[in-house]
């Protein structure tokens, strides 16, 4: 049976579907957060080299990976919106941006907290840190451009173009930063290739899944708000139960 995908790209249908999905994603994210943090802070053994400080990785690693992944998802939605002119795709792109920026910031922040006891410095001009910082700048540029254009259609299309250019540029920036760093000096800090303990892995994957579900839940919630804002004059909105009340 073929599914008519365009049915779900209509804001009125998607608003209801998203409303039904949000509690499930939010609920399972909350459960997984509790489980993951419990494994991370109480079950996982203490690291020999890094002692207790390594435990920040249970938040740091999922936040970093998701912040990069969300940029790609955002750029894909933006491209969909630009190509097929579907309103919902652009709304999804602008709903994802704040979450991505937040996770990029969290990743930098937790990285600094980890760096102080480990490297003795809050910030090191390491290739990975620098490219994460630039990723945050790209998110902020996207949000700022979207916010400063009043006409929502123009805002969607202009920031979509920016997101696509950014996603093409991300690998170039990443490699140039890496070469810039290695040209100056060899990488001073590296994870040694020690294999992780099984419970550490379990904790990290649980946290990863939790952050992933959280990102989905929050973006769906945000896209519902955006739909309400943009379509406030539409007939179907005035017929909603929560609006009539």
């Amino acid at each position: 049976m073929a599914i008519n995908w365009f049915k779900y790209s209509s804001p009125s249908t998607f608003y209801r579907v998203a409303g039904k999905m949000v509690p499930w994603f939010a609920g399972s994210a909350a459960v997984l957060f509790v489980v993951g943090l419990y494994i991370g802070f109480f079950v996982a053994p203490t690291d020999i080299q890094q002692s207790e400080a390594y435990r920040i990785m249970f938040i740091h690693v999922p936040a970093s990976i998701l912040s990069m992944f969300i940029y790609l998802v955002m750029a894909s939605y933006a491209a969909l919106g630009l190509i097929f002119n579907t309103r919902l795709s652009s709304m999804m792109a602008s709903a994802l941006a704040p979450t991505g920026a937040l996770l990029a910031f969290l990743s930098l922040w937790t990285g600094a907290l980890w760096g102080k006891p480990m490297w003795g410095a809050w910030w090191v001009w390491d290739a990975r840190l620098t490219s994460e910082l630039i990723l945050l700048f790209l998110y902020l540029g996207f949000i700022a451009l979207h916010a400063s254009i009043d006409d929502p259609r123009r805002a969607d299309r202009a920031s979509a173009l920016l997101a696509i250019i950014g996603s093409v540029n991300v690998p170039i920036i990443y490699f140039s930063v890496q070469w810039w760093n290695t040209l100056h000096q060899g990488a001073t800090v590296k994870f040694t290739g020690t294999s992780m303990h099984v419970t550490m892995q379990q904790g990290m994957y649980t946290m990863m899944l939790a952050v992933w579900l959280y990102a989905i839940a929050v973006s769906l919630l945000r896209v519902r708000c955006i739909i309400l804002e943009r379509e406030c004059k539409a007939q179907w909105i005035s017929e909603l139960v929560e609006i009539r009340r």
Partner: protein
Amino acid sequence: MNKLSLIGLLSLVIRRDFVLAMRRRADVLTTLIFFVIVVSLFPLGVGPETDMLRKMAPGVVWVAALLASMLSLGRMFSADYLDGTLEQMMLVPQSLSVLVLAKILAHWMVSGLPLVIMAPVLGLQFDMSAQALWVLIAALFLGTPILSMIGAVGAALTLGLRGGGALVSLLVLPLCIPVLIFGAGAVEAVVSGTSVGSHLSLLGALLVMALVFTPWLTALALRISVE
């Protein structure tokens, strides 16, 4: 009326923009003076030790060039947008990308090229060696057109917006980081005695890539902004 060839259009728009810029020489000079002032402020800020100045010269010149090129971006399309010329330009039967490329080249000639010519003089203030100065010129010659091209996309996206100047820097500066890295890296390579060729080749590769994609992207962005 006979149709203009693409080369004809290119040279026509370049000549037009160049004449317009020359009528307002003050605008062109402001960018150049800004560049000189920013570079001259660094020794005042960090102290006059020659060793340190020589070491940071390439970075300082490149960052100043980056900032100066941001300064002039607002002028690229805004005057034509305000008096309606841009809309007429978008109606021409020839490709808008070629027209945009001409505008970018004209913009580089009045805002990028003066920086390239001025840079060695500033390099002397920082006690750079003759060899390093040549590499600096070569790198700026390859790099500043890229800044104009990436900047053109940003300028087209922010056309007619309030607070456009600060916004365009926010959008464009992160995208210019590779240019900065390879441009300043080339000069540092010659100072430390390693190969300059790799940096300049990468810069050239970026230039070719920008030459292919940015006029088209700018044309797309202009169509989004002017509807």
